[in-house]
């Protein structure tokens, strides 16, 4: 049996996202020139929710896009199961934007490394910041997040499950003991 511990429930997830939205606006002194790029899949949903929060606060629409990093992974040639290539959808120019990269869980940092490489192929933003719903530690690269929903200390034997309404039917964050 897998042991599961609930870290955040629906309200918790919602509060974390709202706080991230406020912090993004504060740090960037408003929402002008801002854009949000979510990393597939769950990062995209979180980015859209942050954009909706920012719209409520600032009354402006923030550009959002979706990034698939499969083709930029550094473990593509290792036998780690076959990744499915999904669509990247960034239908605006990222040059000179204050770009906020959004993902669900920050772990080794390798996904973010791949995302930074991918973004370089799309243009040259003025700055790139990183927002994550969960930071669980165990970095393998010199990468840190600018906005964190929840810091969750974990062991490598555990895994963090972020479940969102859009993909999983409900909002919650669980720690799961791997067998």
């Amino acid at each position, binding site marked *: 049996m897998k042991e599961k511990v609930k870290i955040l429930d629906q309200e918790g997830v919602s509060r974390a996202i709202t706080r991230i939205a406020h912090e993004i606006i504060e740090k960037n002194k408003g929402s002008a020139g801002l854009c949000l790029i979510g990393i597939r899949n769950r990062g995209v949903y979180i980015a859209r929710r942050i954009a909706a929060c920012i719209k409520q606060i600032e009354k402006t629409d923030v550009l959002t896009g979706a990034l698939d990093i499969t083709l*930029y992974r550094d473990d593509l040639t290792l036998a780690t199961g076959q990744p499915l290539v999904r669509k990247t959808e960034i239908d605006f120019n990222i040059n000179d934007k204050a770009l906020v990269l959004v993902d669900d869980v920050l772990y080794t940092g390798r996904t973010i490394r791949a995302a930074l490489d991918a973004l370089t192929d799309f243009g040259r933003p003025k700055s790139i910041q990183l927002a994550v719903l969960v930071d669980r530690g165990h970095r393998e690269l010199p990468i840190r997040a600018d906005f964190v929903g929840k810091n969750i200390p974990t062991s490598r034997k555990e895994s963090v499950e972020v479940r969102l309404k859009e993909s999983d039917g409900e909002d919650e964050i669980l720690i799961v003991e791997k067998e």
Partner: protein
Amino acid sequence: MLWTRKDLLGLEYLSAEEIGLILDTAESFKEVSSREIKKVPALRGKTAVNLFYEPSTRTRISFEVAAKRLSADVINIAAEASSVKKGETLIDTGKNIQALKADIIVVRHNCSGAANMLARSLDVSVVNAGDGWHEHPTQALLDIFTLKEKLGKIKGLNVAIVGDIAHSRVARSNVWGLTKLGAKVTLCAPEMLLPPGIEMTGAGTSSDLEEVLKNADAVNVLRMQFERDENTAFPEQLDYFKKFGITEERLARAKDNIVVMHPGPINRGIEMSSGVADGKNSVILEQVTNGIAVRMAVLFLVSQARDASRSSDA
């Protein structure tokens, strides 16, 4: 759904799910060609060899562009200008390419089964770019991809394939792929160009173009391959155009949104009129664009599968 094949030899050997996976992957790759920097590092450090025993411009260039957009290194070998002239066999040529540590061979050959034979003898990935009258899987995949993009689905469509069925690997691959995905295919040609036994592939046949066009959601018009076989009887060109050429008058009696495809190169005034080739129903140039995405997907998938099987052997 996992892709586990190191080769792509023909659509006859694939399941509907495998064909679906290639099409879905191609959809993701299509976006890459619309970027300012049209390149991703997915096949960086891999070498793809285009080994062509028949003249081909568009297929070879399409494979070359696809491989380059994935950051692979590409080597082109035209058999006329190689040691094949000196009598080297296909297998020997393949083994020499493998000894160069190439990863993928894209082969076009005038003998049916050439790609299959190469794939059996080699450890590198083999992608069939057309073998004799057998199969041309990536052409059919890009036809199906384009059709799906235009009409939103494949299942339940009536697809007519008109022209030189007898000499056409494009027709064969299309029949396999389309019928597996649930389309109804009708092959339409003068009787001398309908090979006996073709209905075993699951397609219907007809020599009544007007009737076939009336029900068709799409028509794939094949090139008359006058160069392919001097001994086979061919209809006289003008006579063929009169009876089987796709013209504006004939299209006017078909469905309004019928999709007109052609694998190219077009013989204008033989298989179709210029008005149709350049008309509102024609998707011929979109097929060329989609060909890149489909071939990127195929190169990526076979390469991944080969890497996975090699590292599990080690």
